[in-house]
């Protein structure tokens, strides 16, 4: 069903985007294309620059050089709230709830982007909450949720803005295997509803399961791209994760399991 929606049209294109922090090249000459209605994963070892790249795309940081094109508009350096209005939003790796407010109020803030009326925003928010399986917690303070439900809330807030492209920063991190199993269909369902997903993920099981395409970053540079099975067999990728020469030492079957543990 995904394949039927998938087109070759790009919703997002990065053209040799770079960003340095005081001499450290966090992101260097990265060019990627994200197809409309696809689910694309961005992987790489810790410190590879994945979250920095997300900050650059969403507008929290400005790239030093390069161009970012979203929906055929140049959005390089535009503020995050401008991008959110155009349907590009992100979630945060470290969840960022509005702590003093209930789950419903949190999600309603996202809903207000398209509903000025308070009761309409609340109504749409409870619809999103229902879909995310958060309805029993609607009137709880967001600070009282477990990490798994906070991750869902993070996603629900972003979804309430009715995005076209959503950047998910490690929505599965910190979840136990059962919680991951519950979350995967939720992410999958986004694409079926016409949202394009670009996700940073360390949980390889999820990447293999979900992604149409994978980009691999290491030390700020793009080192590989392709389908999940292609990149996990790529020697550069194996070495980025496990060290130089690892590709030779390990057979491929072995590799997949050790990556799961190493994440």
């Amino acid at each position, binding site marked *: 069903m995904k394949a039927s929606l998938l087109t070759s049209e790009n919703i997002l294109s990065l053209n040799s985007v770079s960003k340095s922090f005081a001499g450290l090249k966090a992101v260097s000459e990265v060019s990627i294309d994200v197809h409309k209605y696809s689910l694309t994963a961005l992987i790489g070892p810790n410190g590879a620059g994945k979250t920095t790249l997300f900050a650059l795309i969403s507008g929290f940081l400005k790239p030093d050089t390069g161009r970012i094109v979203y929906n055929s508009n140049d959005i390089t350096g535009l503020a995050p709230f401008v991008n959110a209005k155009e349907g590009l939003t992100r979630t945060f790796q470290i969840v960022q709830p509005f702590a003093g407010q209930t789950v419903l109020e949190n999600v309603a*803030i996202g809903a207000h*982007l398209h509903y000025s009326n308070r009761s309409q925003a609340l109504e749409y928010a409870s619809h999103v909450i229902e879909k995310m399986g958060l309805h029993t917690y609607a009137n709880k303070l967001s600070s009282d949720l477990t990490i798994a439900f906070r991750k869902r809330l993070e996603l629900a807030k972003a979804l309430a803005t009715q995005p076209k492209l959503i950047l998910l920063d490690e929505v599965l991190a910190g979840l136990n295997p059962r919680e991951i199993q519950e979350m995967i269909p939720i992410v999958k369902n986004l694409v079926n509803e016409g949202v394009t997903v670009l996700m940073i993920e360390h949980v390889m099981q999820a990447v293999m399961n979900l992604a149409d395409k994978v980009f691999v970053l290491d030390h700020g540079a793009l080192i590989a791209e392709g389908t999940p099975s292609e990149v996990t067999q790529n020697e550069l990728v194996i070495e980025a994760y496990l060290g130089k020469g690892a590709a030779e030492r390990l057979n491929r079957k072995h590799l997949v399991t050790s990556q799961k543990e190493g994440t």
Partner: protein
Amino acid sequence: MKDIKFIALFTLVLATLPFLTNSGVVLNFVVMALYASLLAQSWNILGGYSGQFSFGNAVFFGTGAYVQVIAQMHFGLNAWDALFFALSLSAIVGVFIGSVSFRYGLKGSYFALVTLAMAEIFRILSLSVGFTGGGVGLMLPLNNTFLGMQFINKSGYLWLILALVCSTLLITTYIKHSKLGAYMQAVRDNEDAAKALGINPFNVKLFSISISSVVMGAGGAIYVQLFQYIDPGIAYGPQSSVEALVAAIVGGVGTLWGPIIGATALLLMSELTRNLFGQIPGINMVIYGLVLVLIVLFAPSGLSGLGLSVRALFSRSFSSSRSKLIEDSPTHGGKG
């Protein structure tokens, strides 16, 4: 709409008070409590709902007060027209300070310091320019007419200030139940998350400071109508800033009734302690300081117990200048 009913009841009860009692002590207390509530409400809109801690609300108070006097004395306006200009100029000062400090991303302690400095700049300016009367101050001529907004008995003031407090209650209620209020609270609770959801924090804060400055300016204008005198120390000194801030925190930050509860409690306490300490100058500021420390330590949600924890609010808004949200954290692995 429970809030609206309570506001109606509150207004009705206080408005009928002059018919129930002639006691000058009671009426005077209510007038002063309402006046202090107005200042606290102003601080609560900016500090409580938008999380921008101002230490210099006096800058709006003083502007409202001076414009109220000058418009009447130098321009011959009646007090009601003067009030209009007092509120407008306070708003302009608010928008100016807001746009300068929010444009450059000042928040937390930096914003607090800027507001403090602004109040001080205005105080020194009002000492040195001519039309404020300098250090001598300005005396508003007695004019016990309706157009002069001066009243022989306290009930006139009571109704006037009650109308302002009631309006501010209604504004605050609107804020609580609207998109604007949701956005203000989102910016207060997490500015980066707010941006990701399409909120422009600059606009939200600017709107908030303009409402806050109008209410504070009204407080200043009322002050001169009550006491018929203003000088730079009263107008732009720390007294009104501190009163506004402490009362809001004591009552409960980010709540509808907190500022009124806090202002009344503080006034009650300073009336009671006046007998204890006699006429030591500035003793009420010492007491306010002590109360603030005790509240932050033992009742951070205020006397109403319903407010946001002022400690959480402080640490949240005072640490948010770190850009922890957007950078890769190398220690944060997949199992984080």
